[in-house]
């Protein structure tokens, strides 16, 4: 029954994603994501996001390509402050001691917007449209089971139309 399709059936399993640490600097995170994402014959393969772990190996967030864009934004603010009055930096807790932007600053926390394994595809669709996101964590209780992407949802809907 396609209308009863749950996100569990279309999600990408959690172990298929690359993993980064929340204290990693941007360059390190990009390196890890890049390894999972490679070019062949002019097209790209791989997933456009990474899971973020804290020091105790707990899952704390998702780093998407949009998150990496945020690094540019933070860098721009930082450069601006350094060029003008450096005392402004004391008010920005975003930056660590050596002023490097780390994954924690740009990731999306894992528990913010999620669906559960039994949710329908349409439930996922609603959340994606409502919160303007393309990647939705799928939770099995408190454990992350996988992630569902806009493209997975789009595909199911296209099939339902036939």
């Amino acid at each position: 029954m396609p209308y009863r399709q749950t996100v569990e059936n279309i999600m990408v399993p959690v172990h298929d994603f690359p993993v980064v640490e929340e204290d990693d600097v941007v360059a390190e995170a990009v390196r890890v994501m890049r390894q999972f994402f490679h070019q062949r014959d002019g097209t790209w393969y791989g997933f456009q996001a990474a899971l973020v772990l804290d020091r105790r190996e707990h899952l704390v967030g998702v780093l998407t390509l949009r998150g990496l864009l945020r690094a540019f934004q933070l860098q721009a603010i930082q450069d601006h402050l350094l060029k003008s009055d450096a005392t402004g930096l004391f008010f920005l807790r975003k930056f660590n001691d050596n002023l490097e932007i780390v994954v924690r600053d740009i990731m999306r926390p894992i528990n913010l917007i999620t669906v559960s394994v039994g949710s329908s595809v349409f439930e996922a669709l609603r959340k994606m449209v409502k919160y303007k996101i393309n990647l939705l964590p799928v939770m099995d209780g408190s454990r992350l089971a996988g992630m569902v992407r806009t493209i997975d949802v789009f595909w199911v809907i296209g099939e339902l139309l036939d």
Partner: protein
Amino acid sequence: MVPIESYVTISEEATLYEAIKALQSAMHSEGRAWHGHRSVLVLGEDNSLVGILTMRGLLRAAGLKELEEDPQIKAESWGWYYVNRLREETKVRVRDVMRPLELYTVDAGATVLDVALVLLKQQVNSLPVMHEGKVIGIVRTLDVFMVIDDYFY
């Protein structure tokens, strides 16, 4: 950026159903990873480029908002209504759900930083690239990612 010629195009008069099929034909899957473009270009009457139709634009369409607010429709049957709507809605054309070309653009001479900031600010993942008043390509979040190493090390 991606050259404009490599995109699939569709008429602004096309229906939502045709648009979804066109977008699906532009994508292929290999295993669980997808490739191909996630948007199609919309052509106007004289074959000029008038907009971009994205996957999000399509999903947002078909009266999603009204469905959400209609208390008569129970959560379980919501999906059924949504799909039926997409199939039967013949009045809604691509023109109504596309993103007009001129809305957000960047100049061919813009820096990567400029592009990143516009992508963030406008909450989009692709931007038309303009050169002397003409669209020459599309730049995406993905393209920024591919050169990001040059800025953070």
